[in-house]
């Protein structure tokens, strides 16, 4: 860990958005699985996900980035066509 000389001054963090390095996947008990076939690309899961863990691709398709997903299940509930299912994470 950094010494006092190496820390940025004034309680600043100078790398915007470096929280992507923080492991939230570990928080997850359930994991969303998105069925691209069922998906109508409505985007609701994307706009409702509290984490920004759902990625909107260039082709307007959506997928889950599991490194960023905490497994809350909001996406599943947002999906009118039930394209998302929550699956229990297993330890070990």
């Amino acid at each position, binding site marked *: 860990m950094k010494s006092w000389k190496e820390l940025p001054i004034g309680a600043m963090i100078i790398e915007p958005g470096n929280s992507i390095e923080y*492991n939230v996947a*570990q*928080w*997850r*008990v359930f994991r969303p699985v998105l069925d691209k076939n069922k998906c109508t690309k409505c985007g609701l899961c994307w706009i409702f996900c509290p984490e920004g863990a759902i990625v909107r691709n260039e082709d307007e398709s959506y997928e889950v980035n599991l490194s960023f997903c*905490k*497994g*809350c299940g909001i996406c599943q509930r947002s999906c009118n066509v039930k394209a998302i299912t929550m699956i229990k*994470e*297993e*330890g*070990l």
Partner: protein
Amino acid sequence: MLEIRWHGRGGQGVVTAAEILATAVVNEGKYAQAFAAFGPERRGAPVLAFTRINDNEILLRTQIYEPDIVVVLDKSLCNDNGVGRGLKKNGIAVVNTSSSPEVLLNIFPNASKIATVDATRIAIEKLGVPVTNTAILGALIRATRIVKIETIENVLKEKFKGVLAEKNFNAVKEAYERTLIFDRGGLL
């Protein structure tokens, strides 16, 4: 002095578990400390709690760096290697998992004894919700005999009202029964 580290998630009541144990110890006339690794606890986020147990007054107020016992309330936490960190040589690990204890050997290389129980299943059976903090106590006691199970019963009666105390104690008892224990000599 016995030092226990508890691993759970925000919202699972891991601090309560550490406290129930401490109260039981105190009720048996000994001394205990229970506390959490303090920080902004968020639902879902891994959290730590601690219990210290001693026959005499406990003066030590530092954090616990090298626990004698590690208790894991949620097996998915074992995905991260943090759970085994610092466990003393010949320490004990107690984990909520349906797996058998041997599977955990390389997660707790220092453990001389590993106990497992499917606390989630038991909690659902006995409480109707997957709140594993009381069930795991049964496994811990089974593996360590730190306190008498009846003492836990009394603490639960003080802590919870009416039928909830009973249900929780049923979970403790059930877990106590179903705990699998493995020591370096083999499954007990």
